[in-house]
Each structure stands twice: as structure tokens, then as C-alpha cells.
């Protein structure tokens, strides 16, 4: 296996690939994605980071200044309102301790001080509320800034490390529930790559083994395999995916990625199976396979040592193609609510963005981040697959 890989690396195709700049850039991009995946797997971003409320709802990314109406809304609701309510509680100290917004807590000040800030702020708030629409009232801008400063006084300043972490989390803004879009998009990379790799590995293995057996043994083995894949490929694959996902929705495995894996592997092996079957039929006629026969080797040895290794390039190309296929299908399934359940996923982010009316109201950060991250991953793999196909195309060798 190792020597087979080494040979693949030193082959003419690999040298051709190394001369292909587009492919190298794509490979680099993929490596970056892989690094993120590894980081997420090492818990650099935990599931908790993705589901936690870290700040005001639907905040814009890159710390862009928002419209006055939104700024007013954020300043009013994120700290002022909960602090005001806590102060009215029968046990204000305990209630204030519970007021949290992500990393932010209520400033460590005496109750009377807090009370004072709140009443000042509410006074400014009343003045600001007199205006119908702050966006059209530039003359109120100084008042708004003052209001923001006042409400900020209610918040305990973050330590330097915490501020850094907070800024990172807020980089691409927050979604409608105040969760970090950046972290969710990054975590989705891991989900996508994990699903892509597992599906591609399993599908390629199943496809290659069935295809090689069909092509090599012929006869009833071939009939069975061909029957199997014509049957499977005559079912619209999305419908099959939906059916399998539904079938799992009642079981315990629903929360895991298992339904997604099963649904994808059920259809994805077909392409690999077809090409490996064809290649095996060709290889079977070659003289080194006949030589192996006259040497008295058994069929299993011939198949696994002399035939399958020579379809390695097809497996590699198919791996790359299936990986993109799985990632794209995962997004679609998750968008439909049938895919990933208890983890973030680009599909879920895109669905949320639509459901919450974010997109309608011009808040594009969530859908933008999801498509951006997905776009470059899929693009890189597409370029790589094309380059692989070119590199292994005998006509260009």
C-alpha cells in the first residue's frame, strides 16, 4: 500500500499535477480547510461556542457601524433592559448576577450607582423615542452616542484576552439568536469535511470492491452488481436520501451523523463501481494478469494485488468527486432539515437566514458566511478533481 502510494506520487501524472498552478492553489486552499478541521476536532471551537449567545442579536460583521435605529435597538435591549428589570427584583444583587450576555456581565458597581446609570439612560431613551425614525434624524446622533456610552457603563470591561476572543467571535456578526456566525461557519467546515471524507472513503471502497469483483469474475457476480447499481441509480438520489433520512428520524441515531452517512453511501458508490468495473474488464485481458493466472495464483490474490492497485488513480479521482458531492448534498439535506441535526452546518445556517427574514431585511452576514466558506471549498475540490482527471488522462500522458 505504502509503495503503491509512493509510486503514485512519483508517477508522471503526479509530476504533471505539480506543474499545474491552479491545482496547487486549490491544494493549498484545501490544506487550510483541513487545518481548520483539525483545529475544530482538537476542540479549538467547541459545540458550546457555536450554540452560546455571545452578543446582541443579528449584529453586523467586521464591527461595521450600523444604522442609528439598529444601534438604538441594540443599546436598549442588550444590557439596559435586563439590568433595569433586575433592579426591580426583590433580590436585585442575585438577579444582577444572572444578567449575562455572552462574556459580558453587569459592571461591578454599587446598586445605587447602577440605578443612577439606568435612570439616566432611560431618560435619554425617552428623548430618542420621540423621533419616529432615528435613521432620518441626524440631529439626534450626539444623543444616540451618549445613550450608547451610558449603556456601556453598565457593562464590566473585558480582560484583554477575553476582548480578543469576543472580537473573534463577533467577526462576522451574530445570527438572530445572538450566536457567533464566524464560529458556526468554521465549525461547519469540520462537519462538511467529516461527512465528505467518511462518505467518500466508504463509497469508494464499496464501489471499487464491488466493481472490481463484477468486472473480474463476470457471470452471475457481474449480473448481481449491475442489477444492484442500475436499480439504485434508477431511484432519484435526492428522494432516496430523503427516504433514508426519514427512516432514521424515529431512531436514536437521529442525532448523530449516521443517517447522513447511510443515505450518501447508499447512492454514491455507483459511479466508482461503474468505472472500476470497466477498468477491471480491461485489465483482466492484460498479460500480467494472465501471467498471474499461469503462475497459479488464486483469484483473490490476483484481484487485490494485481488488479485493484492498478485502478488506484480512478479511486483517487472518484474520491475527490464524491467528497464535493457529499458536501453539497449535506448542505441541501441540512437545509431541508433532514441532514445534520445537533451541530451547525452551512445548510442550517442558510435555512435560518431565510426563516428569520434576515435576508429580507438586508442582513446578509449569515447566508453570506455560509456560502462563502462553502464556495471556496467546493471550488478548490472541483479544480483539484479536474486537474487529477487531466493528469491521469492517458491521452495527455
Amino acid at each position: 500500500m505504502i509503495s503503491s502510494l509512493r509510486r503514485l506520487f512519483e508517477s508522471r501524472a503526479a509530476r504533471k499535477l505539480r506543474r499545474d498552478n491552479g491545482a496547487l492553489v486549490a491544494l493549498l486552499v484545501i490544506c487550510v480547510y483541513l487545518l481548520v478541521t483539525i483545529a475544530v476536532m482538537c476542540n479549538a471551537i467547541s459545540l458550546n461556542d457555536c450554540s452560546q449567545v455571545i452578543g446582541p442579536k443579528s449584529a453586523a460583521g467586521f464591527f461595521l457601524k450600523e444604522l442609528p435605529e439598529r444601534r438604538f435597538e441594540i443599546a436598549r435591549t442588550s444590557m439596559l433592559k435586563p439590568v433595569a428589570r433586575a433592579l426591580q427584583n426583590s433580590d436585585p444583587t442575585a438577579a444582577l448576577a444572572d444578567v449575562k450576555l455572552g462574556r459580558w456581565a453587569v459592571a461591578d458597581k454599587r446598586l445605587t450607582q447602577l440605578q443612577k446609570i439606568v435612570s439616566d439612560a432611560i431618560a435619554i431613551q425617552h428623548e430618542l423615542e420621540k423621533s419616529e425614525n432615528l435613521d432620518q434624524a441626524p440631529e439626534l446622533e450626539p444623543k444616540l452616542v451618549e445613550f450608547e456610552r451610558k449603556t456601556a457603563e453598565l457593562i464590566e470591561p473585558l480582560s484583554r484576552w477575553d476582548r480578543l476572543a469576543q472580537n473573534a467571535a463577533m467577526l462576522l456578526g451574530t445570527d438572530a439568536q445572538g450566536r457567533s456566525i464566524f464560529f458556526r461557519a468554521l465549525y461547519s467546515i469540520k462537519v462538511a469535511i467529516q461527512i465528505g471524507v467518511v462518505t467518500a472513503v466508504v463509497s469508494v471502497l464499496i464501489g471499487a470492491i464491488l466493481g472490481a469483483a463484477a468486472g473480474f469474475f463476470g457471470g452471475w457476480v457481474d449480473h448481481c452488481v449491475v442489477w444492484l447499481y442500475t436499480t439504485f441509480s434508477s431511484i432519484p438520489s435526492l428522494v432516496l436520501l430523503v427516504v433514508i433520512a426519514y427512516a432514521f428520524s424515529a431512531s436514536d441515531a437521529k442525532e448523530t451523523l449516521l443517517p447522513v452517512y447511510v443515505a450518501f453511501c447508499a447512492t454514491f458508490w455507483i459511479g466508482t463501481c461503474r468505472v472500476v468495473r470497466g477498468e477491471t474488464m480491461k485489465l483482466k485481458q492484460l498479460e500480467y494478469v494472465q501471467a498471474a493466472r499461469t503462475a497459479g495464483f488464486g483469484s483473490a490474490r490476483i484481484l487485490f494485488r494485481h488488479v485493484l492497485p492498478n485502478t488506484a488513480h480512478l479511486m483517487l479521482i472518484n474520491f475527490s468527486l464524491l467528497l464535493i458531492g457529499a458536501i453539497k448534498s449535506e448542505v441541501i439535506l441540512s437545509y431541508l432539515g433532514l441532514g445534520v441535526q445537533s451541530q451547525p452546518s452551512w445548510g442550517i445556517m442558510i435555512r435560518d437566514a431565510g426563516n428569520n427574514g434576515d435576508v429580507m431585511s438586508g442582513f446578509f452576514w449569515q447566508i453570506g458566511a455560509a456560502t462563502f466558506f462553502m464556495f471556496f471549498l467546493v471550488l478548490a475540490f472541483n479544480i483539484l478533481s479536474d486537474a487529477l482527471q487531466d493528469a491521469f488522462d492517458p491521452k495527455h500522458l
Partner: protein
Amino acid sequence: MPLVEVSNLVKHFLVRGGVFNRVLRQVHAVNGVSFAIEKGKILGVVGESGCGKSTLGKLIVRLLDMTAGKVQFRGQDISHLSASELMSVRRKMQMIFQDPHASLNPRMTVGAAVREVVAFHKIVPKREIRDEVDALFAKVGIHTDSQEKYPHEFSGGQKQRVGIARSLAVNPEFIIADEPVSALDVSIQAQVLNLLMDLKDEFDLTMLFISHDLKVIDHFCDSVLVMYLGFVLEELPCRDIQADALHPYTKALLGANPVADPTQRHELTVLAGEVPSPYDLPRGCPFAARCELVTNQCRQEMPPLVEKESGHRVACWEV
């Protein structure tokens, strides 16, 4: 008792296709071939490309299943042995293939390819495998250090030497060499042929030597089988083929070989006409359409292979 005896071997390929995988037509690749090879002898098989020489070889080593007929090896009928029973026989019969590029697994070093065979048949104890293979490579004239190279790093001639080493690795008694040099440069053909003949003596081999070149066969073989469209037209000893040849087809083949002596030029027989298609064989002699001596009887009836003198058989009505 001859080492290998083939009687009435027939192979029809069924070409399938269309709806429901019907049999569209039959290719009559080998039509009733019989011969025997004594131990230590080399029998040549000659004929134009497509006349069924490779098919004949593959039938004997059971790479293909025969339609009818019988193959005996050391008196044992091997035509119907099962895969497991074939194992021990296979060790004794090996094949050297025509295309050296296709006959080595591109993903295996040449050393690994030969070691695999030695290890599989437990020819020597495990510890001695390397030495055994080193010795084999030395015998076929490949530097022992080249063992860890892959086939694409070798020239055609070297690859063929590796192929020869691999087939000798199991200590066979009988070797079928299917045009072992026709894919090689003319300059190295002689080297490889000489190597093969040296090894034949060293390993005490019996050979079926397939070629389309009568000159080469005349030089190396004890007798020759002339095939045409799957039929044997003549079998004659290689003493003086030029003088002994009786069948018009054999004579035509001799003419097709360039002759060094200019005074003989005028005797050059040029083959005219088309080779009939192996799909629908003519009723009579297959060579009738191109034969100079053709008569009505030739077109009606296939001539039987009759023994003219000891070891010399001809299938022709006119000689």
C-alpha cells in the same frame, strides 16, 4: 510418451451483444489442431497474425477453456481439471507473453513480481527466496540491483528478460513462448532468442515456440506447425524447410521472408487475395481462395492431414 499431446483442439469464441446478450456470431479461432511434443524438443508454430496461434497457446495452459478436444500433459488429461487440481500442473507449464510492456504489473517492482511467484509456490525456504531470485536475475542477464525498479524503468528487451525469469521461477518443464521477441527491436531480438535457447538447455525445457517468422523457427526449432485460420496445414521437421516444404502456403511463407541470395529472387511467391474471415469459414480448404494450385475439390472439401513421411504431415489435395 510425449510430454505434451494435443488432440483435436477446437476453440470457438462466442461474440455476444445486442439485446439479451445473444450470440451474434462465432469466431472459429482454432479448428481441430493435433500434435505431440517429445520431451526436450522445440515445436514451432507459424502463421499470419490472427490465425489462432496465441489462442492455441492459451488453450494449452488453460487460460482459455476449450470448446472441444483434449490436452495431455505427461499422459494426464488436463482439459477438465478444476482450478485446484490445475495448480500443480500450472507450475510445470508456463507462458512467455508477446508484449513485454503488458506482461509486468506496473505497480510492482520486478523483483517483487518474481519473488511473489517463488514465495507462493514455496520453491525454496523463506530465507532463501532472495538468493534464489538473485540467481534467476543473474541467469537472465539483469543486474541484481535493478530488482527494486518498476517495469517502466526498463527497456522492452529487459522487461522480456524479467518475464522469462518469472516463468522460470517455478522450475517449469514446458514453456510456451508466444512471439517472445516480435515486440522488440530487431537489434535485441537475437540476444533474447539466444538467451531463451541457453536457458532451454540449462533448465532442460520443452517448448512450444510461436512466431510469425519461419526463418527464426527454422533456426531454433526441431519441427514446425504451419497454421492458417485455425487449421494446421503442414507439420514438418526443421532440417531443410526450403527443400522439404510441400504445402503451397508454407512455400508462400518462405517466399515472404526476404532471401539473401539474389539468384533466388525470382522464386518469390507473393500471397494474393484476402484471408477469409474466421466468422464464416469456407467449406473446403481455408487457403483455397489464395492458392495457386486450387482445384474444384479444394473448394468443396477440406483435405485431411496425411503423413507423407515420418514427422511430416500435409493437408493438401495437390501434393
